[in-house]
């Protein structure tokens, strides 16, 4: 977990796992809100860049949450 996108992907997926049991819609809402509330802009920018580059490693709910968050931004 040394390089930054890997770490951020790991963190985002970790958030995703907490919300997973709440079903897709609430999960996507929960993940995007959490990242918006607690992540510094540079971290969000990096993960969006990773998303653009294919978003390897991101769980499906997390990917949806990030897409949703970027639309709002």
């Amino acid at each position: 977990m040394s390089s930054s996108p890997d770490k951020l992907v790991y963190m985002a997926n970790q958030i995703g796992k907490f919300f997973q049991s709440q079903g897709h819609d609430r999960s996507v809402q929960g993940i995007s809100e959490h990242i918006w509330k607690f992540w510094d802009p540079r971290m969000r920018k990096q993960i969006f860049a990773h998303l653009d580059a294919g978003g390897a490693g991101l769980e499906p709910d997390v990917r949806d949450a990030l897409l949703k968050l970027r639309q709002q931004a």
Partner: protein
Amino acid sequence: MSLIQETDFGTPKSKSEAMVTLTIDGNQITVPEGTSIMRAAMEAGTQIPKLCATDMVDAFGSCRLCLVEIEGRAGTPASCTTPVMPGLVVHTQSERLKKLRKGVMELYISDHPLDCLTCAANGDCELQDMAGAVGLRDVRYGYEGENHVFAKSHGCENDNWMPKDESNPYFTYDPSKCIVCSRCVRACEEVQGTFALTISGRGFDSRVSPGMNESFLGSECVSCGACVQACPTATLTEKSVIEIGQPEHSVVTTCAYCGVGCAFKAEMRGEEVVRMVPWKDGKANRGHSCVKGRFAWGYTTHKERILKPMIRERIEDPWQEVSWDEAFNFAAAKFKGIQQKYGRDSVGGITSSRCTNEETYLVQKLIRAGFGNNNVDTCARVCHSPTGYGLSQTFGTSAGTQDFDSVEDTDVVLIIGANPASAHPVFASRLKKRLRQGAKLIVIDPRRTEMVESPHVKALHLPLMPGTNVAVLTALAHVIVTEGLANEAFVRERCDWSEFEDWAAFVSQDKHSPEATAIMTGVDPKALREAARIYATGGNGAIYYGLGVTEHSQGSTTVIAIANLAMVTGNIGRPGVGVNPLRGQNNVQGSCDMGSFPHELPGYRHIAGDAVREQFEAMWNVKLNNEPGLRIPNMFDAAIEGSFMGLYVQGEDILQSDPNTKHVVAALSAMECVIVHDLFLNETANYAHVFLPGSTFLEKDGTFTNAERRIQRVRKVMTPLNGYADWEVTIMLGKAMGFEMNYSHPSEIMDEIAALTPTFAGVSYARLDELGSVQWPCNEKAPEGTPVMHIGGFVRGKGKFILTEYIATDERTGPRYPLLLTTGRILSQYNVGAQTRRTENVVWHAEDRLEIHPHDAEQRGVRDGDWVRLTSRAGETTLRAEITDRVAPGVVYTTFHHPDTQANVITTDFSDWATNCPEYKVTAVQISPSNGPSDWQKAYDEQARNSRRIAPIVEAAE
């Protein structure tokens, strides 16, 4: 200023609401039923002579000095053991009483040395006072007979005489001065709950005996000081009093160690502390203390304190002592340069949970308003940030729900991942007192801690595998719901019913049953079911938890699971119940309240909220950034990546206390300017460019907020040795950076906090002086503060049940790392040990030891006391082993108080999903025999020694 004299009423206060009226010495007095005649008299202003009675312990009736006469009753009963009754007519002074008392005193004094002038208790001796009070003028028996006073009598060794026991570093036991009142024995039992002392022998042979006639240090004594405080003579005396003499004035202040927040009287001679004595009116500690607050304040004047500012260009250079102005200008130039080069967001700071609310508030203000970003965080990140998240999600506030007094109404105590006997000792004593009265105790902890088994306390212990908290707590919920033990009426009234139904269906799934989860948790399903039934049905149930809950990758989930348990059983919103995080450091609660987290302003309000942010902008006259900043672990990552280059750290040793030391070293080394503001050259300072000397809690005014949300005053008793209080240093640093903050006293800072923070609206220094302390919220609705929260309804409206799926940590054991390491604290040391290691407390704990089960030790050929190598995926270190079955096979344990051990070289980067609170409590490790320090330890030690060099001062030529 004068010495605060607290009234000793002789016996404890009665809690009865029924009142009784009687007559004492011709005056009618009305007191609660159950009050002793002695106490009733004292409340009316009449002090009946006494020796064995004191109001911290129950009446004993042994000294026969407090005799009174009661009309219509035969004899002369002891007033301490005789309760008041309606219509009694009591006389406290008569010819008969005078004669009896004088006779008793004469006997006492006939076996007591007459060295009053040179005695350490001179001026503070109850025996002396009572001899005066009864008018003793002569001792007819002489001193020739059998006695405990003289080493030799009639030229022979006196077998009754015992030498002083100087083994405890802080107090002396002089048996020759003992009057066997047994106040010390009872204080140890009733107040502290350790039962280390007893009276051995009978009659004339009666002696105070630590353990089985052991030394104090060799016995079970935990050096809390309760016995010393209770002793009416010089038998048990603080060594500082013996050395310095009696204090002449005292000031009430708040301990700067753990989150209990004990109130102390700092007893002074001029600017020298003579002793710290717990204050009976302190609402957190009620007159009790532990070895740290009572005795371990010597660090405040330790020779290693750095008193002059220092700077250096590179961390390889020796430090240069400079003037304050030079240091501020150097730091300001560096930070400005960094911001110009790397952008506004490339610097930040860390507030201290050891500093005052006012100081913490100023640091976050400097960062938000002065630096122009929100890169502010605090050490709560690495301890209780999941508490803030979990409790605000479920209940609506980021704090514990009760006051400590609440434990007196508790019937079932559930302790999860906490060891209050070591980490929150004064609360533990209060808790044990309640347990001895019959309350039940359940402990969920991988280790058999001191709480599990202690005198007259036996817990139902659920020893779980580290990292499986969520599975265990969800299984408890499973039992409560499926066995029909939920408090449906409470849930329907106070909580969101449809969320509850979702949650109930979730926890009811078979996969969450104790039987199904036992394979992961290692907890006996029968014991788990029993624990669930006791908690749900045993009356008032209160949960106390610590860092064993929060410092996991599922820390926040566990806090939520705890809140769910309290809601489903209706254990919220009245005395005796609740959810109570035991905070690690003195002001963790306060530093969180003061807006130390990057995403929220003081009072836990998100930085993106325009209305709140605009209030701060108006008050501070500056535009604030509306985006959350970096949290501590994110700062480290950003530093390594090259976008975060300057850090101001106040009163926090991130290098020693944060996980994965190598990662922290890499991050700090990458930064261009690290400013450390501290008492000592701590480990972080090895990588710093500016050192600003800090001040101790004795040297400044301010407030701390303890684990009960209780705001208490810290009062200055001496001039800062370094010249300035920390709040003044932050102001001057800000000024050098071009950001003016104008306050002439911390009270003005508190006024600003109150004006901007609704939960603090009613707080002011005047209010605190008047009430002693207040628990927030303190505002128009609760002008005297709020001891118990969520009465009648939750702060957020409806209590919110949230699903808590157990997700195993990615830190797994395997063939290479087959054991799980978990970490904790010991009573005598505090946090990274920067303070306590610089006191005599090292006699109890001179080094960190690795606790390992005999089975695991045997397999590896490790014997007790051997050096072992402890290796994880993150790093390795060495320390000595202690073989014990307190830990289960497969689990090892150590403390993190000593920098040469560097337990955090071992801990990993894994962290809580919601808050990035590090997973200190679970690390997969291997252990092997070792010959001594690892290469890393040697290299680290050399770097540290090199980095701490201070250049000799060269006089500049004119």
